[in-house]
């Protein structure tokens, strides 16, 4: 039974492009996902891929243009703002920028206690004691409760953000790049905390990140987004070890080596991610893809299974027409073989 199900999610923004002209920015274009109980689904993509918009839509901070979001049996998209309020207890969010996500005029304790009182979970002394307990659970001391956000370090701020999300004992937590603003050593501690909390409370995480290492470490499954669409989805190991979509391959080969002996060959995409305003009605990677053939510009690429649970949206990959590189998943990452039309550049 999935705890969160996204069906055909679409989010368009109207953008003013001239004095009286408006165009649609296709931030998210028809995405379906489901998240099992106690599972972590990683959502990877570069900026402009629409991954953060998915996070905002799932938590209903932005209303989807169309599509459905089921939390348990409830379709969130049919609820009004006020009807959503009690439901929000079950789906919480941890934000990207810890310093901006805490109200600067409230102490850490007040911030964490707010959801408790809002949802009538506890009040008065009981609420304060529960808050103190939450602080301990995320590795802070109750003394930190009287601190204002600017008196806390980045890692501590993000712990407060996590405590706030945990306060209502949610089923699903959406984590939008929770560690990207933090230093490596702090990041490692937070990742460990998130994993421990998940085990204790059987939480489901939708983990949004551009950092493949972090995603690879935490996620059971991973979905790769490009220009508002999912191009590949599957078990983390499947996707990262044998990426079938050229975009996933490029992402994987762009992961910096963890030591200089592993500096390696790259799969290059030409240019940069195109504008999501009026995207083409065919495979969206065509303009940058080293494997593109004219047929790719004929029709949209849809997700098709290539192995159980492993889906790819690429015309050529599903027919086995492009070479699939193997990335050693675990310690070192290298490109074994690459032939065909790939633009491969040697380094030294």
């Amino acid at each position, binding site marked *: 039974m999935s705890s969160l199900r996204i069906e055909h999610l679409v989010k368009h923004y109207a953008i003013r492009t001239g004095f009286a002209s408006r165009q649609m920015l296709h931030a998210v274009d028809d995405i379906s996902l489901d998240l099992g109980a106690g599972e972590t689904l990683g959502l990877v993509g570069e900026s402009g891929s629409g991954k953060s918009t998915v996070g*905002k839509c799932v*938590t209903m*901070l932005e209303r989807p243009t169309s599509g459905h979001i089921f939390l348990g049996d409830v379709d969130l998209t049919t609820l009004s*703002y*006020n009807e*959503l*309020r*009690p439901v*929000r*207890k079950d789906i*919480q*969010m941890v*934000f*990207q*920028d810890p310093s*901006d*996500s*805490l*109200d*600067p*005029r*409230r*102490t850490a*304790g*007040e911030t964490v*206690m*707010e*959801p408790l009182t*809002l*949802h009538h979970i506890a009040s*008065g*002394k009981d609420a*304060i*004691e529960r*808050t*103190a307990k939450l602080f301990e659970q995320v590795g802070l001391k*109750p003394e930190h*409760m*009287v*601190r*204002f956000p*600017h008196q806390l370090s980045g890692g501590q701020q993000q712990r407060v*953000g996590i405590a*706030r999300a945990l*306060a*209502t004992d949610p089923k699903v937590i959406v984590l939008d790049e929770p560690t990207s603003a933090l230093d490596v050593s702090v990041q490692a501690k937070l990742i460990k905390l998130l994993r421990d909390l998940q085990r204790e409370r059987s939480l489901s995480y939708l983990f949004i990140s551009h950092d493949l290492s972090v995603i690879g470490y935490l996620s059971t499954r991973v979905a790769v987004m490009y220009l508002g669409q999912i191009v590949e989805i599957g078990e983390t190991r499947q996707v990262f070890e044998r990426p079938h979509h050229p975009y996933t391959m490029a992402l994987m080969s762009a992961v910096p080596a963890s030591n200089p002996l592993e500096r390696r060959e790259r799969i290059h995409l030409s240019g940069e991610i195109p504008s999501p305003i009026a995207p083409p009605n065919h495979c969206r990677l065509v303009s940058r893809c080293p494997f593109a053939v004219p047929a790719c510009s004929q029709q949209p690429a849809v997700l098709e299974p290539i192995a159980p649970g492993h889906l790819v949206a690429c015309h050529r990959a599903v027919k086995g027409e492009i070479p699939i590189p193997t990335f050693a998943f675990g310690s070192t990452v290298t490109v074994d073989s690459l032939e065909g039309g790939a633009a491969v550049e040697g380094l030294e």
Partner: protein
Amino acid sequence: MSATAAQPEATYALRPPFSERWRQGMRALRANPTAVVGLVIVVALVLIAIFAPVIAPYDPQKLDMEVVSQPPSSAHWFGTDQFGRDVLSLVIWGARLDLFIALSAVILSMVVGTVIGAVSAYAGGMTDEITMRTMDILQAFPRFIFAMGIAFAIGPGIGTVVIATSVLNIPGYARLMRSVMLPARKSQYAAAATSVGGSHTNVLFRHLVPNCLVPIFVNSTLQFGWAILEAAGLSFIGLGVESSAAEWGALIQLGFQDFNAGHWWIYTFPGLAIAVAVLGFNLLGDGLQDMLDPRRQ
């Protein structure tokens, strides 16, 4: 934010103890001599206003035909006006009336303007558009013409001065609040307040507005000075309080009637009082700007 205050018997506190906040406040004051000077002036003015009956050497409305239009002397430090009233006493009592007018006008326009601006920015869309265009219209009114209209409707007096000054200041506050609110609305802490299940009122008035108040407060202290000037101006052209009242603007107008006679003391001293008051509030405002930001402690 009082609802979240810790109960004394709780083992854990949610707010730093008052002593610590007091210490921080004092430290911020010490680092900010401008604000201290402003504060001293403002507090002195308030004390003068409160204790006017005690401080003033004469009854300000007592006419004494023996000492008409006398220059400053040891008996009458600021001289007397053409009715023999003591100018010093008039200036002291004037602090009462002027501070009252300025305070009520500023508070009225601040509260109304802030709410309008906050709601407008938060709601966005058509609400925002309509509200802000209304503000434009209001702001486009020439101030004194507007005051004349109000004076025509309810007659000259303190009420006219307060209403005219406050209504015309509402657009300024609304605009200021809106401009601070627009980026705040996009902040992650606002999104977080929504995502934990807060109502619109909660998100707007418990989280966003408190974080947008610093410029509003600063602006208000500056507006105090302006409001005094404006009230004095309205009285000066005869739309405010009656010309015999102990009010700085009215006094200046009185003094001007005898301008050619060289009776400079009648208009100079109330003029100086206005200048000092405006200066005090402005210094305080500048100082507050630095102090009120929690991130700068």
